[in-house]
Every structure is written in structure tokens, then in C-alpha cells.
């Protein structure tokens, strides 16, 4: 059986605990060995060793390669076209040779593979750029980046270099900033790689890669919609819906057990998105302009992003139906923000006044943050409590400095909510005391 992957801390904890069990005679020494053999830290170790050597080897390789190019470039003009062409292809051939050597002969050296992949990734771009220079080929940056990307993604799969993943994410982000085209779809090509990491139980690398892809794809989608796009003013609601999708997807894929903040990138990123966007929507000014800009032209990218919105809504509904019984009150608190996203989009056509929408968003943040705080207390989860507290504090801070609300009204609302908190606290303490005394009576 393939041993389960765990961290070094977990393994050493298990070692010391099982050592105690052997001493106490609960299990025998060979049973301890059997148990310990079921857990391995190899992938975690290889991750850290590969990352440290990746940094050093890749940086070294890139600096040397760059230096050589600069030295050659100094005498560039005195070479003939033929020499220049050969020199342009040379970095690519050298990088390919290194990649071949590492995959064919030294597959166990993760650091070498990382370095070879990164180097090959840059060498493809260098060759194209140098050829363009030799022949004065006009600079079409978009076409250059797409070619680089298409030639670069296979490196991720065939050489298995995780460093390339980060570079590919950066490249897609760059492309999305350039053009109003759905280049963010390229992130889909990374999905099999992530799935492979998950299958191989390389969880540490998997988590980091997933964080990169989630953040990269979200920002790429934002960038791909320029101010000229007709759905520009809907983007904030579409992002809110996307955040809810991320949150649900995280719970769906990784289960409802808490994995810590970094352990479940989908849910954590989703929750962050929901909290920050809902806070933005508590301000005036977003909703007022949230209609389709009928003067702008729809392009393919805009339709695709509307499709993302539709998929977010439908998938979240699917999630609720399938996992209805397992949903806790704190999950409901976050998922209901989908209603704010939908209302934001359909609000203007159904003539929902701005005051109503803003009151709703404020009430939503108030209730949801209090629910999360109370769940944090009940479940003894400090992170949940702090997150709720932070969310709540921001709402209070924003409203305190909100110049659109009259002072008297603000004062009354603040006093009212403050008293409610004190009241609930007193009631809760009394209930606790009553419960305790009831238990004592029962025991007596």
C-alpha cells in the first residue's frame, strides 16, 4: 500500500506518541513500526529540498544565460545574419539538452528538473525574440506572448517543473491585461496538472499551485474586462458570485472538515472574496451604476464572463441541493451573499431602490459576521471568531466614517446594536449558569 503523506511535525508527533504506547504496553514494537510505515514525509521533504535548490539553480542558470546573451549582444552587429541565426537558436538547443538529460537520466533530481524546465521556458522566448531582432520582425507583443505560452505549457507536463506553473500564471495574467480576449481560459489547461499533484498526494505543492491558479485566474478575469466593456459595472457582482462558487467548490471538493486557512485554497479565497466585496457593496455608488452599458459592443469575452456568472449561480444552487443536510449555519452565512450578487445584477431592471439594496448589504454583513463570530465561539475555533470579528469591525469602521448617514441616525443605530450585544451577552451568561446548575441538580 502507498504510504499516506504527512508533514514532518505530524510524523514526529506520531513517533513520540506511539513510543509511549509501546512503553505502556498498548501496542507492540512491530505494530508501532507498521503504523509508522503507513505515513511518509517524502513528498513534503522533496518539495522543500526541490524549492530551495530550484531557487538557487534556476537563478544561477538564468543569470549565466542572461550574461552570455548580453556578451554576445555586444558584438551582435559585427556578426553576419547566418551567425546571428545560429546564436539565436543556441540557447534553446542547450536548454533542450539539459531538459533531456534531466528527464532521461536523472529523473530523481527534482532540483535539476525544476531548473531545466525554467531554463527551457525562458529559452523558447529568448530564441523567438533574438530571431525577431535579426530580421527586424515587427513587435506584436500579444502574438509573441501567446506563442511563448503555448510552447511553455507542455514543459509543465513533460518535465514536471513547478516553477513553470508560476511563470505560466504570470504570463496569462499579462496577456489578460493586454487584450479584451478570454485568455484566462488557458488556466483550464493547468487543471490536469493540479489534479495530478492531488492524485500523487503532493499536497504542499498542490496547495500552493492551487493558490496561484485561483488568484491568477481571478485577476486575469478582472483585467480582461476593460472599462469599455458593457458588463464593466456588473463585474463586482460577478466576482462576488465567483467567490461564492470558490467557497462552495472548496467545501465540495475538500469536505467540510477544517483544513486551516492555507489548506483549502478554494474556500479561503472564496471567503476572503465574499467578505471584501460585500463590504465594498455596503457603500453608496456601486449599485447606482450597475446597469449594462448599452452603447458598448459585446465581444466574445463578455459573453464568456456572463457564462461564468451563470455557472457560478447554478453550481452554487447544485451545491446547496446536494449538501443541504451538511451545511452549517456559518456556511449558510457566506453562501447567502449569492443573493446580493443576483440582486445587484437584476436590481435596476426590477426597479429596486438603492437605499433598499444598501440596507440589505449592511444587514447581511452585520448578521453574517455575528453568526460567524458566534460559531467561532461555539466550535472553539479561534480563526473563525477572529475572521468574523474582523469582518464586523470593518463594517462598523466604514459606517462610523460614512458621511452619507446623518449623525443622529448613526448614533441611534450604534447604541442600539451595542445594547443588543450587551443584552445577548447577559442572556447567554445566565443561560450558561442555568444549564450548569441544572446539570449539577441532575448529578445530585
Amino acid at each position: 500500500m502507498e504510504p499516506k503523506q504527512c508533514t514532518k511535525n505530524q510524523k514526529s508527533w506520531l513517533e513520540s506518541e506511539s513510543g509511549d504506547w509501546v512503553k505502556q504496553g498498548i501496542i507492540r514494537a512491530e505494530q508501532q513500526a507498521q503504523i509508522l510505515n503507513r505515513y511518509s514525509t517524502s513528498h513534503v521533504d522533496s518539495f522543500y529540498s526541490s524549492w530551495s535548490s530550484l531557487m538557487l539553480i534556476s537563478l544561477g542558470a538564468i543569470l549565466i544565460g542572461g550574461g552570455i546573451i548580453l556578451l554576445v549582444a555586444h558584438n551582435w552587429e559585427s556578426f553576419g545574419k547566418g551567425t546571428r541565426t545560429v546564436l539565436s537558436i543556441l540557447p534553446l538547443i542547450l536548454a533542450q539538452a539539459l531538459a533531456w538529460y534531466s528527464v532521461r537520466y536523472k529523473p530523481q533530481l527534482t532540483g535539476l528538473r525544476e531548473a531545466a524546465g525554467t531554463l527551457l521556458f525562458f529559452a523558447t522566448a529568448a530564441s523567438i525574440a533574438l530571431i525577431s531582432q535579426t530580421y527586424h520582425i515587427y513587435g506584436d507583443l500579444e502574438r509573441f506572448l501567446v506563442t511563448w505560452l503555448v510552447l511553455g505549457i507542455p514543459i509543465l507536463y513533460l518535465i514536471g517543473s513547478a516553477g513553470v506553473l508560476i511563470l505560466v500564471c504570470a504570463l496569462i495574467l499579462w496577456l489578460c491585461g493586454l487584450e479584451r480576449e478570454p485568455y484566462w481560459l488557458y488556466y483550464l489547461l493547468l487543471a490536469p496538472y493540479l489534479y495530478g499533484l492531488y492524485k500523487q498526494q503532493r499536497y504542499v505543492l498542490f496547495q500552493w499551485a492551487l493558490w496561484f491558479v485561483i488568484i491568477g485566474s481571478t485577476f486575469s478575469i478582472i483585467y480582461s474586462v476593460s472599462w469599455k466593456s458593457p458588463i464593466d459595472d456588473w463585474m463586482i457582482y460577478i466576482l462576488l458570485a465567483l467567490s461564492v462558487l470558490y467557497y462552495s467548490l472548496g467545501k465540495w471538493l475538500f469536505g467540510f472538515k477544517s483544513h486551516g486557512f492555507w489548506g483549502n485554497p478554494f474556500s479561503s479565497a472564496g471567503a476572503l472574496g465574499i467578505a471584501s466585496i460585500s463590504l465594498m457593496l455596503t457603500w453608496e455608488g456601486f449599485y447606482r451604476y450597475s446597469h449594462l452599458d448599452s452603447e458598448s459592443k459585446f465581444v466574445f469575452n463578455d459573453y464568456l464572463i456572463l457564462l461564468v456568472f451563470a455557472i457560478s449561480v447554478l453550481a452554487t444552487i447544485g451545491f446547496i441541493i446536494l449538501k443541504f443536510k451538511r451545511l452549517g449555519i456559518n456556511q449558510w452565512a457566506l453562501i447567502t451573499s449569492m443573493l446580493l450578487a443576483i440582486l445587484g445584477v437584476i436590481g435596476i431592471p426590477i426597479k429596486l431602490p438603492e437605499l433598499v439594496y444598501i440596507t440589505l448589504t449592511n444587514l447581511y454583513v452585520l448578521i453574517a459576521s455575528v453568526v460567524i463570530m458566534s460559531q467561532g465561539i461555539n466550535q472553539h475555533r479561534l480563526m473563525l471568531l477572529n475572521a468574523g470579528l474582523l469582518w464586523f469591525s470593518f463594517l462598523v469602521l466604514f459606517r462610523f466614517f460614512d458621511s452619507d448617514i446623518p449623525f443622529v441616525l448613526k448614533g441611534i443605530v450604534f447604541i442600539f446594536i451595542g445594547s443588543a450585544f450587551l443584552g445577548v451577552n447577559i442572556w447567554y451568561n445566565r443561560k450558561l449558569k442555568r444549564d450548569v446548575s441544572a446539570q449539577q441538580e441532575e448529578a445530585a
Partner: protein
Amino acid sequence: MKPTLILLVVLFAIQLAVPGYMIFEQNQILAEGTAYKFKTRPIDPYDPFRGRYVTLSYAADQEVVPVMEGAEIESEDWVYALVGVDDEGYAVLEVLTDVKPEDDQDYLYLETFYRRYDGGYLVSLPFDRYFASEENAPKIESAVWRRQRDEVEDVYAKVRVYKGKGTIEELMINDMPIKEYIEIQQEQL
């Protein structure tokens, strides 16, 4: 051999084929294309990827190009521009069309910029970069600017045009390649 290794070889081949095709395409245009003189004025920027180059702003870029009768063209469309020669022997873009011209007619495939009130379009010629060393790029610029103040201006790019594609063969001042011209200037100083 393992499938990964075979795929790796395929990837290597494609990675080499891309610059390889670029070289082939350029050589084909240079060998088989017709030479035109595009009147120009260079300015010197800096490209972090590809080093120093001189941006060429063409006289033909500033002219409004009329649209051929019956052709449907909008801003930012890719169109065919028929290339001709004016009385002084410089290249001009004669007319824009959305139908691919016959092979005996020289044309460039390019993007329209924006529409003018008379229905014609401003276009930008794609071959607007001339790469030079970090030493020579500023010299090219200053040489040309000085010329244009003092003497008759005769700066042009010798461009080969072949099946819609154009590529710069040489940048010329007074019918002399720019590098020779700069060398002579250096000697005179």
C-alpha cells in the same frame, strides 16, 4: 522509449520549428519579394526583451488610404492594402480592400487604425522596428534628425513585399545603408 520521452522530442521539435519557420518566412520574403522604398523618420526607444531598436514612423502612416468601392471595412479590421509607387519613386498605399488581391499585384495585410470623415482609413505599417545595437540606435536617430534640419531629406526603409507580408531589408540614408552612413560620419568627425 517511454511516451513522455517521445512527447518531449515532439515538443523540442515544435519549439525549434517556431523560430525555424520565422527564419524561413523572412528569407522567403527577402528573396522573392518586390523591393519598395518607404519614406520614414526614425525615433529610438528601448525594448526590454529585444534590446535597442529604432521605431520608424512612415510617411505612408500619415496618409489617409481610401477604401475600394464595394469593400466593407471597419476600424481595427485586418485588410489588404494595395502597394504602388509615387512620382518620386516612394511606396504609397493606394487603396484598401477586404478581398484578397491577385498574386501579380503587391499588397500588404494590415490592420486599419481609425476612420476619417471622408470614409478613408489611417493604417499603421507593421514593419516599424529596425533593431540596432545600443551604441548605434541613438546615432541613427541623431544622424537622421540632423539631416532633416540641414539638407534634403532622403531617409527610407527598403522593404520587401511578398504575398501580404513585408519585411525591412535595410534602412537607407541618401541611398546608402545606415551603418555605412554612420561609419562615414564617424570618420569625418
